């Protein structure tokens, strides 16, 4: 019993310490962010969209699919702050729910891309030699694909669905991530703590995951943020090209695609969705850029 208690206290204290560590890390991050006006503006914009996405049902009065056929193509009014589209749906509601689409698909696809990128980049950078050569050649081949072409081919082969959009963006993004991870790994693997880990007989996977990965997180986080921006950009583009989510899913790119043919009659759906994409992408870019510049400034 007594030993249990001790180990309890120990694990509790460890937990507290970990928490404290995380808190400290967050504090430092916040300090970093608030040092850069660019990052702050970016963060505000992104958080605003995150807020809109999370609370979409609370801050809108309609359903995104609700069609009011007696009021189509309305200009902004008190009842419809951004007007209605050609099917009489409230544009603001669709924009708000569209934020949900893009802010869930974007991070998910980038996350999947990171999983693939890590799975390729870590071994390539760590083992080098023929493993690296092989993986690099595959990556070269993947990189040679203009991303949008990859999307077009994948989506033409398997059709458009949220899942496929995620897969397409993930495959498109993975080579870049893998190269970054590889470069970071090649750098970190020469650090002596990696040698130290080898000298306690740690397995390669253990070393990659415990020694290398946590120490490449800085650039990876910045890259992650930037890539969410690109993903939002691409999800919008896919929607616009008609390769995105099937209607009537509220999807910003899709809204532009649906609306731009009748733009001269009703510009509001296009304008709203366009501004949404532009602000989100710029916000994410500003946030990532500011963070990167600030973290490099006083090195």
């Amino acid at each position: 019993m007594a030993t249990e208690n001790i180990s309890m206290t120990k694990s509790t204290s460890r937990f507290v310490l970990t928490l404290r560590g995380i808190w400290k890390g967050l504090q430092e991050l916040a300090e970093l962010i608030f040092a850069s006006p660019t990052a702050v503006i970016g963060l505000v914009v992104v958080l605003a969209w995150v807020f809109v996405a999370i609370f979409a049902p609370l801050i809108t009065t309609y359903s995104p699919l609700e069609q009011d056929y007696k009021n189509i193509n309305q200009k902004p009014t008190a009842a419809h702050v951004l007007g209605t589209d050609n099917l009489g749906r409230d544009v603001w509601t669709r924009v708000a729910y569209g934020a949900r689409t893009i802010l869930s698909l974007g991070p998910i696809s980038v996350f999947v891309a990171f999983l693939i990128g890590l799975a390729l980049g870590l071994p390539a950078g760590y083992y080098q030699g023929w493993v690296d050569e092989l993986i690099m050649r595959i990556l070269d081949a993947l990189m040679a694909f203009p991303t949008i072409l990859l999307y077009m081919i994948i989506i033409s082969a398997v059709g458009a669905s949220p899942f496929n959009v995620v897969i397409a963006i993930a495959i498109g993004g993975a080579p870049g991530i893998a190269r970054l991870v590889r470069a970071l790994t090649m750098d970190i693997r020469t650090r002596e703590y990696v040698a130290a880990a080898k000298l306690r007989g740690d397995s390669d996977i253990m070393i990659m995951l415990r020694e290398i990965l946590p120490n490449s997180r800085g650039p990876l986080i910045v890259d992650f943020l930037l890539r969410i921006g690109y993903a939002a950009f691409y999800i919008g583009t896919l929607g616009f090209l008609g390769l995105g989510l099937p209607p009537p899913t509220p999807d910003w790119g899709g809204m532009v695609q649906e609306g731009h043919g009748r733009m001269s009659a009703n510009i509001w759906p296009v304008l709203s969705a366009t501004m949404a994409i532009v602000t989100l992408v710029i916000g994410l870019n500003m946030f990532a850029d500011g963070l990167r510049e600030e973290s490099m400034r006083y090195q």
Partner: protein
Amino acid sequence: MDDSSPILSVKNLAVTYKTRKRDIDAVRDVSFDIYRGENLGLVGESGCGKSTAAYSIVNFLGPNGRVKSGEILFKGEQLRNRSEADLRKLRGADISMVYQEPMSALNPSMQIRDQLAESLIAHRGFNQKDAFAESLEALRKVYMPDAEGVMQRYPHQLSGGQQQRVLIAMAMLNNPSLLIMDEPTTALDVTVEAAVLDLIAELQKKYNTATLYISHNLGVVARVSDKVAVMYAGEIVELAPTREIFHNPMHPYTMGLMRCLPDVDAPKGTRTLHPIEGRVPSPANLPAGCIFAPRCQHAEPECLAGHPHLKEISPGHQVRCFRAWDWTAVKENWKTEDLVPLKESCPDRNGNTEENVLNVKNAKVYYPVPFKTVGGLFGMEKRSYVRASDDVSFSVKRGRTLGIVGESGCGKSTIAKAIVGLEPLFGGQIDFLNVDVSKPLNKRGIDTIRDLQMVFQDPNGVLNPSYSVGDQIAFSLRRFGTVPPDQIRAEVERLLQAVKLDESYYNRLPRQLSGGEKQRVGIARAISTNPAMVVCDEPVSALDVSVQAAVLNLLLEIQNTRNTTMILISHDLSSVRFFADEVAVMYLGHIMEIGSCESIFQPPNHPYTTALLAAVPRADPDAPHSNIRLSGHVPSAVKPPSGCKFNTRCPFKIGAICEQEEPSKRDMGAGHLIYCHLTPEDLKNKII
């Protein structure tokens, strides 16, 4: 102006930097004069504000820095608050600089001749042809081999020594009145450093240039400077003529710096080192009172309260210390006090010396060179190798230390890594505790891995920044299961104590530690499994001198208490002398000479050893200077020269035999082996 007034006179200089949080005074109250032909050495540990002080002279402090107060008089004229256009006329003409990292100080995409010539064109209106001619002349003045060839080259095609010569030539082009040299030899190998220092000394004599020479290395300053200013945390704490400061230091910091240096002439066990406890305070967090007081052994309450000013206590000798004049008695034997007869302190050092813990036989470590053509992948190109370590044999006895010395790239680290299994062996054999360990780590048994640990060089790389100190040591304990899980924390704390860190370090993250502390944790981790042997790869070379001493002491203590066998890889002969029992001298992957520490540091020696020894800067202005210098640079390890590997640079080359035949080993007795065609007599005579 006449020679009696200083070329440069800095008075009460203060420099401040804007940071995210607030302004930080990096340099405060710095005053010094430099006269024509004089060389002022500015020494101090890293982060003491030496470079800041130097750059403030040419007002080059970056966007965040500015001179806050004080005067900078150059030839009697105020340089502060001068316009950029005015300064530009001085920069590179009357005041020029030489930098620490010659590689990055040169434009990578410009030929050397253009980089040299533009200085002449800008300041003296030369046309290009004349400028090239003058530049070539300048290169010749710095004894640049193949000066014409170098003119056409790009920086990356030159060796570090050549690059530094280019920078010196560039600085001298316009016959400056003041030359500022910012650690010009720090990035260079010891043999190259020696040659560059010779050059600097010669040029100074020849052109009578006033020089501000910044270095962290007391030995270097002792060699070139007429006057030395010791900086500490942004202030000059002592300023005196070189001889005076080395023989009669007045400030406890200056004394501390000298007391912590290992002496290349003192054999192992004859003296111990006195590290300065604590660390240099950051300029953002200065202590009240005397800035050195928290680390000073002699601090009194008044030291903690008031801030001392620089006082002249004898002509030309200024000290910033309240007690500089009243502890004359203490400093009678300041250098040798606390001398502990180390040999007696560890009785079993000589107990089982005959047992070889490690036997290395003809070890080869080759790295394949990446194929230049795709055809290589299909066997159409002959594979070539970097022969990092070629045919190396030695053995280490239990409880002893083998030192391996040599310039960078000689293969000493490679062989160390091969021993612990971090590099695969290309040929040869390594036996450890009578087990064949000629295989990489993942093929070795867990016991072998546990028994053969390593201490690393770079304090910033030695610890994983993501985990706490305790965790990193605990990883090893868990992995090897040396202690039951519930005792791991206690064991880690015990280990921390063993490396003189208290248990509060357990939860610290590496970035909260100083370099020396990190290195201690690294040592704690290496000894956590109680290994039979520890390979130390340049354990102190990246540390400040005051910290070096502590770490070296610690290693020695660990060896004495645990009877650990060690290999010390180092380019610093002083550390090796301090710590090693046997020494191997390596050059281009080959052992040139091996033997007991005593025999290596005394003639007869291999010519290469001789050159190395001659190059060691001694922190004593009166130490005899040897003129033996190496010319040329280290040949490629892909295509090593035939015959004796050293023949291309050997000052005692006797002829064709050196180029054609690989020298056989010459046994000089008592295990002292020399690989040279010279006879023992020649080795002895020629060198002395």
